Structures are given as C-alpha cells and as structure tokens.
C-alpha cells in the first residue's frame, strides 16, 4: 500500500488545510482527503506536486509498504 505523511506535513507547514493544499496542486479538497486517508493513490504528477508544495523529496511524503499476507 502507499502510505503518506501529508497530514503531518500539513500540520508542520502552518496547519495548512486540505482546501489550501488542494488549491495549490489544482485538485479538489475531496481528492486530497482521499489521498491522505490512503483511499486513492495519486498519479506521479500529483505526487510530485504535493511533495513540491511541502519542499520535500517524493519519498519523504509517500512510502511504499508491503501489505503482510494473513498467513505470514
């Protein structure tokens, strides 16, 4: 699954709202909320835009984590 630190980064950047972030990357607030909750995986372009807003490298915002199988 793709995990992210968007909520933490928003808080660290002056308690930026989802709406503010959405406006800066040209998306809707609902899409930002869905990305933040891990319900929607953004395109590479959107991911780079989000990372650019926070001034962080992509891997500092999004991380790929392997989902453990039930019998592991």
């Amino acid at each position, binding site marked *: 699954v793709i995990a992210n630190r968007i909520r933490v980064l928003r808080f660290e950047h002056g308690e930026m709202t989802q709406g503010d972030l959405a406006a800066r990357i040209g998306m*809707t607030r609902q*899409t930002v*909320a869905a990305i933040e909750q891990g319900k*929607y995986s953004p*395109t590479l372009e959107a991911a780079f835009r989000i990372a650019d807003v926070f001034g962080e490298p992509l891997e500092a915002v999004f991380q790929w984590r392997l989902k453990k199988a039930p019998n592991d």
Partner: protein
Amino acid sequence: MLKRFDILSYIDNIVSVLIDTGEARHELSREARLDRARHGGGGFRRLFRPVRPGCDVGRPDRSGGRRGGSPRRLAIATIAVAAAEPEDARAPYDERERLIDLAAARAGFYVVQAGAFLAISALALGWPAVSVINLLLGAMVAGEIAKDAWRVATYRRGAA
C-alpha cells in the same frame, strides 16, 4: 463530489425525455387509431406512412401558453442552486473525478447495452414498435440513473 451542474442537466434530460415520450405516445396512439379506422391496418409501416391532406393527426394546443413553464422553472432553479452552491461544487475536475466519471460511464453503458438487447429481442418477438421505442428510452434513462448512482456511491466511499 457530484457536480450540481450534472444533477441539473440530468434532471433536464429526464424531463425532456418524459415530455417527448408522453407526446410521442399520444401522437402515435392517436395516429394509430385514425389509421386503423381508415385503413384497417397497423404494424410498423404505419409509423412511416405520410399523413394525407386533411387528415388531422396533430394534437390541439390546450396549454394556453403554459408549455414554457417547466423550462423557465428549471432555469430559475438552476440559478438559485448555482448561487447557493459552495466553492467545492465549482472546483474544476481533477484526475480522481475523471477516473470516477469513466467508471460510471462504463456502468451506465452496460445498462444501456442490456436495454438495447432487450429492445431488439422484443422487436424480434413481435412487440409493437412504440413499446420497443419506449423500452429503448427506458434503457437510456436507466443507464443515466445507473451512471449517477455509481458516481454517488464512489464519492460516498471516497475512493476512485
């Protein structure tokens, strides 16, 4: 989120289809009755038979100029909703919404496809042409409803 504009254009489409269907049914049934009375025949060909001079198949306008009322009310409602809608509803489409629209269109297409198949089957089984046309229109309306239901369900779930 579901755009208000889409909801209104959807309502507008439904209203237009219902008005057209109602009027078509009235005209066709009246024409069919006149046709049967004059020629003793029916069938699919009657729909394409030219109207003879002096044959009054049209419906007299009894609306008293009220026929434009529904579109006017719809226009007023559109303006009212547009003025009251939040910023979110006016936001431009983004990638997730495009994905949702694509998936919804696919769902609606399957419903229309099933309806068209039913209509063709009904025609082959000898159903009257008017019923087949109504079946097709019904399939289109059902397809639109399925499309919007899919979109609403996806937006509620929050995923794409």
